[in-house]
């Protein structure tokens, strides 16, 4: 018999600290598989964020740097520019990190078309701090700090990162995926691998937004949380490729015509 599925080499053999059913583990594995399959482990540097995945540096076998809250794209820019031909740099950020405190760094890294890969985990809530409302929380979503549901009149509307960045001329590749069933996990893997391949080919800024679950803070079982992604998150955050300049998917270019 042949082994058809095992833990990837780029994922260190230690148990994750994540809650039961948290999809961070799946996305960690997909990133590690992409690194393995592209054979870039020795020259990859990951930038860990602040949030639940703050301890990502314990799990990836490549070199890791811990950035200040939200500043991962800025740190990644510095690392990448120090040795642009050799290093492969990725950031792994949650929505509290990337879409809240780190919005400026994200937008400007994308506008500069910095040749880095960004993995963005969107679970519509602040997970590590105990389930407060995030910029990505859906209208009407009940959280610790919006007990009657998020009211857009008082709290504004969610930030749709892929849509927002697709208006910029800079970024190379923007796609929104999810990992709530086997088919979507396979699709997410293809997207993440492509984001790394773009960087190897020197094409520029690639961001993959992964709709994730947070069973603990959503107050659901892991199974219900995955269903909630289907029922509530995907209608608000449609999946798909928002920008792929090399293959002609470019909102900005379409407007120029």
């Amino acid at each position, binding site marked *: *018999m042949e*082994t*058809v*599925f095992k833990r990837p080499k780029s994922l260190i053999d230690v148990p*994750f600290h994540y809650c*039961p059913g948290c999809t961070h*583990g799946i996305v960690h594995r997909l990133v590690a598989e992409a690194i393995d399959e592209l054979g870039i482990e020795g020259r990859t540097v990951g930038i860990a964020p602040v949030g639940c995945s703050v301890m990502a540096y314990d799990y990836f076998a490549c070199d890791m740097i811990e950035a200040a809250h939200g500043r991962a794209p800025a740190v990644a820019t510095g690392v990448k520019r120090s040795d642009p031909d050799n290093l492969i740099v990725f950031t792994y950020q949650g929505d509290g990190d990337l879409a809240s405190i780190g919005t400026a760094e994200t937008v400007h890294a994308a506008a500069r078309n910095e040749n880095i890969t960004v993995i963005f985990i969107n679970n519509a809530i602040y997970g590590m701090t105990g389930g407060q409302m995030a910029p990505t929380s859906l209208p009407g979503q009940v959280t610790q700090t919006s007990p009657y549901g998020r009211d857009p009149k008082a709290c504004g509307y969610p930030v749709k990162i892929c849509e927002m960045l697709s208006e910029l001329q800079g970024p190379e590749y923007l796609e929104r995926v999810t990992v709530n069933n*086997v088919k979507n996990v396979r699709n997410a893997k293809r997207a993440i691998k492509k984001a790394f391949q773009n960087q190897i080919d020197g094409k520029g800024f690639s961001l993959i937004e992964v709709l994730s679950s947070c069973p603990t803070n959503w107050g659901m*079982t892991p199974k219900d949380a995955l269903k909630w992604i289907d029922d509530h998150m995907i209608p608000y955050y449609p999946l798909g490729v928002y920008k792929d300049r090399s293959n002609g998917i470019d909102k900005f270019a379409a407007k120029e015509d």
Partner: protein
Amino acid sequence: MARLTFRTDECKGCGLCIDACPKGILRLSEETINKKGHHPAECVDMEACVGCTSCAMMCPDCIITVER
């Protein structure tokens, strides 16, 4: 013929592998408790397993190895 190996002590009992299995042959063990204090996932009918790797794809803790 396929074989699943679970690293039982790292299982958190989330049950995502159970929903992913097209054959419906996985369950949370009722008799055993692992060192984390969860009822770990187990396969009740290894003969029926086709080695599709769906359970391993959905396992957030990457504890399943599939051979085929």
